[in-house]
């Protein structure tokens, strides 16, 4: 087993493909705003984004993530619309097939660590800028935590995800983000399901116990016919072996 991870290799070669996908009509309401009304006892961290013509990362604040900590973490986002300048830049970046990156700081959602978060790195993700433009800023951002509630990764996809090369003429379409936001904790992988299996086995044995007649096997039912038949076959077989084995085989063929 190759445990030497830095040495592990994968060739990751992705073929970009411009498919024809039905455009989903996007609503420009701020869906996430509703959550803001509820009482929040969590921490707020910035969601930053970067899109530059030369693909260097210059992150600026896009909005604020409100993370509700505790047993069942949840998240809400408040974000500002894109400025005129940014909209133009985003379209330009999309034309040269640049990247649209986002990042969030690494924080823990555990109750005891929530008071203040210090920056010990960021989690980053990207999507092609053209996909961002063509989907009219409809993105799906997912935050992933580990078992102890630490943020380990962020992912962003747009719906639709493809770049068809359609021009977005209307500037208004690129003003407001239509973000679907969720937070995911690891699921518990199932162990071997023994109890259900045992139950089923018990039911079957009970069934068998109820009507023993029907559950009898083929042999149990017809042994009185099979045994004489087999005996007969064997006797004839024995004769064949001693005498005309060839004829017996020919007959079988």
């Amino acid at each position, binding site marked *: 087993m190759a445990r030497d991870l830095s040495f592990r290799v994968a060739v990751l070669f992705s073929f970009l*493909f411009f498919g024809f996908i039905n455009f989903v009509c996007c609503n420009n309401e701020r869906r996430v705003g509703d959550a803001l009304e509820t009482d929040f006892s969590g921490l707020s961290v910035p969601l930053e984004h970067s899109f530059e013509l030369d693909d260097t990362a210059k992150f600026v604040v896009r909005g604020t993530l409100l993370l509700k900590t505790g047993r069942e973490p949840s998240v809400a986002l408040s974000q500002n619309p894109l400025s005129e300048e940014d909209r133009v830049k985003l379209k330009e970046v999309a034309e040269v097939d640049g990247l649209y990156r986002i990042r969030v700081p690494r924080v823990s959602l555990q109750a005891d660590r929530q008071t203040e978060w210090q920056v010990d790195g960021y989690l*980053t993700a990207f999507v092609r800028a053209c996909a961002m433009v063509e989907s009219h800023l409809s993105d799906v951002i997912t935050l992933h935590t*580990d078992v102890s509630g630490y943020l*380990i990764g962020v*992912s962003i996809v747009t719906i639709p*995800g493809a770049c068809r090369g359609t021009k977005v003429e209307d500037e208004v379409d690129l003003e407001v983000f239509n973000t679907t936001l969720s937070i995911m904790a690891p699921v518990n992988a199932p162990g*071997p*399901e023994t109890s259900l299996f045992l139950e089923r086995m018990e039911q079957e044995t009970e069934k068998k116990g109820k009507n023993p007649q029907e559950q009898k096997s083929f042999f149990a039912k017809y042994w009185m016919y099979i045994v004489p038949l087999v005996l007969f076959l064997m006797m004839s077989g024995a004769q064949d072996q001693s005498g005309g084995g060839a004829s017996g085989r020919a007959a079988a063929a």
Partner: protein
Amino acid sequence: KAVAMAKLILLLLNWIFLCCNVAAVFEDQVGKFDWRQQYVGKVRFSHFDSHMQSSKKVLLASESNVFAALNTRTGELFWRHVDKTGPEGNIDALLQHGQDAVLVIGNGHLLRSWDIGVGGMNWEMVLDPGSFRSACLVGHQGAVKHLAVLKKTVISLHYLSNGHQKWVENLPESETVDFQAVYSGGNGEVYALGVVPNSHLAIVVYSLEDGEITKQVSVEAPWLSSIPASCSVISRGLLTCVDSTTMSLYTLDLHLQLEMTQIPLQTLGLDVDPGFRPSLVSHQPNPAHPPLSEFLLQLGPEHHLLLQHNDGQIVTLRDYKPALLASFATAGEKTVVAVMAPKNKTACSINLFSAETGRRLLETTLIFTVDPNGGKPEKLHVQAFLKKDDSVGYRVMVQTEDHTLTFIQQPGRVMWTREEALSDVVTMEMVDLPLTGAQAELEGEFGKKADGLMSMVMKRLSSQLIMLQAWIAHLWKLFYDARKPRSQVKNDVSIENLSRDEFNLQKMMVLVTASGKLFGIDSKTGDILWKHYLENIPLNAAFKLMVQRTTAHFPHPPQCTLLIKDKDTGLATLHVFNPIFGRRSQVTPPALPQPILQSLLLPLMDQDYAKVLLLVDDQYKVSAFPSTKNVLQQLQETASSIFFYLADSGQGRLSGYRLRTDLSTEQVWEVVIPTETQKIVSIKGKRSNEHVHSQGRVMGDRSVLYKYLNPNLLAVVTESTDLHQERSFIGILLIDGVTGRIIHEAVQRKARGPVHVVHSENWVVYEYWSTKSRRNEFSVIELYEGMDLYNSTVFSSLDRPHAPQVLQQSYIFPSSISTMEATLTEKGITSRHLLVGLPSGGILSLPKMFLDPRRPEVISEQSREENLIPYAPELIIRTEWFINYNQTVSRVRGIYTAPSGLESTCLVVAYGLDIYHTRVYPSKQFDVLKDDYDYMLISSVLFALFFATMISKRLAEVKLLNRAWR
């Protein structure tokens, strides 16, 4: 009547047996498609069995904790015992006396005695704790009945016959004195020799009878730091040491003297090579008698001396210069010295000298040919014997740096060689053999550029002629062979006549071993066709073997590249070679001055059809190999779609990078797994040569469930740092390697590693230890896109917005496992099996069908329609699933699978201490006629039918004609 009944039972048993055993190998197929090679490992101790004149055994104890006896005539194993790996089974000492061989194992934990005749164990003793220092046989009054074991604080004496302890004594002042050696000269006393480094030597003498200390002295020796490295006992208890700083020999009579006698080497007219640490070798043919008064002194890498102690004087008997190796051997009463001297670049000569006089014995020269692709000689094991005329004859076993054992007889006939480096295979690849000359010629014809019609016609004619010639030669060979009895027909495989067979079942196995020796093995027979030893391989090197060009691009030779990386410094070198001949390629690999983080083989090819290898250094700069203009241009064009990832398990960081057109990189995503709670233990991608035939699975209701086939998906396995059985867990992350998107994240609670993972198609199978139920469990994750496909033509990680459906199920497995791999076939039509290497040495072929998360708990009409097996929590090991029947493969470390030209057949190599090769047919041999297929019957039936139609047609015509006339 009773006979008939017995027959009936037998018949029934036969039926049952036949019904169950369909998947297994038939008896006549044993060894037909498979072979096994057993190894010992790098030899640490060896003893020739000399208690019988006719014995042909050599005992070997290896660094891989294996103890074995070899047949000196053939080099095959008589028997072999494989102990635990690691320090627990480490063989500290091997002592042989007569029919018994005693091993000290596990840093003095165990004492084991073996009968060397049959390889059975005589007895085993657990010793008192304490780290092992030395052991020796103790003889008295001509008989050897005891052995002494010296540990850090105690010395104990054991009976050789049953291992019982005769006495055990504490060593005096063991806190300050470091006891390092034990010696007995057959006079009823046991000497424990210790040293206080750079101060003095401590000698404690014990009585053999009751372990009483009869004498205890300390001798000034400020120059001494290690006894085994510089001292040895010669003659009647004369401790002799050599020291390089004072350039002197020191002698001390253990019985009489209290002070060491210094003899400067200059007085003997000797000189130590600068920077060389001199060493002493003495020889004690029989433990019941004192050692010889002659000893060997090595003063330089190529300088040995035979010295003698005579009446308090040291005399030089013979000066061997140049001499690579020298060693004592005894036959009967005669002791000889075998000395290996370099002759020329390719050969060494070995000569025998009488130990008593130092005179060369006549007609004892033996030539050892040094393999130019091997290592230098390292050790000389000599088997001396008395000939009928009472002269001494000998055979030698030469151990070289590349762990090869060569057994040579006079005058230089190699009786056998064993490549013990193959006991530690690190990585391997299987390469297609080249086409035959004729086929290659034909290929070449299409490969070359057209130059005129006439020459093309001529070329075609000539190639057809060559093919005809080859065909006739082949027919002639068939005819010729048919006349010989079957056993005599030998399939001589040599590099010259290697060619691809009809179904590409015979391939070249390229194996890389930890010692740095590369091997090319014919997969059909297991013969080693070429070997190449790479010198200066760092001890902790990591290897990665890549096939840059296959044999499909005639006339360009196939090309493999081995990346050798020092794990500590990260510095790497490339070795480029031809996998068919093992020769170093003419292409000069680039020098790599920077540490290498990652290497990736791209599907891009240069104009010579070599795949491009990208190397990422620690400055995140990328260099390409080959780096021609054509390659650089291609890289520039496709740079924006080349992504790669780096994993740093120390920081728990996974990061993705994209290539820029100027071959620099930019980081595009980052996932950080906190190292406080869990650590990354393994990352598995998919194999690049894997094909998936079917995009989906047909369900019971005739709808299709589409598989999520992401070629960039990575399975990341983590283990918790908290190992408490209630809180430990293992984590499984499925991450897209291009976008860094976490596709699935699951935690198996109350579980612990080691985790074995197989990742293929749309599934991940992993095995772990459940701490709650205290058993091994398998779990399978399958990913599906759902009932409709997002984009059926091309998969792009950048355009798959919907997360796949994840199904998971777990099972109990009744054994722990050593390694796991999935079968692989040409087109992926054949169903998949998992090949599981078990610690017992079996290789289990477990159908993937049993690891299917869609196995229903409750059987329904639809699941029956789909052929799903109802869920059962336990996976059962069926004995007919073992693909290696009784051919146990010891310590399986890895399994390699390769597709063959037949869709039904997958080639399997399991390697560990042994190497085993076989073929597996996961869906039976659906594309091959059986061996015993009745061609006669089918053709006679065909002919009969043909004639019957002809005749009946004729008859019908006649009948019609007759009717027309009527």
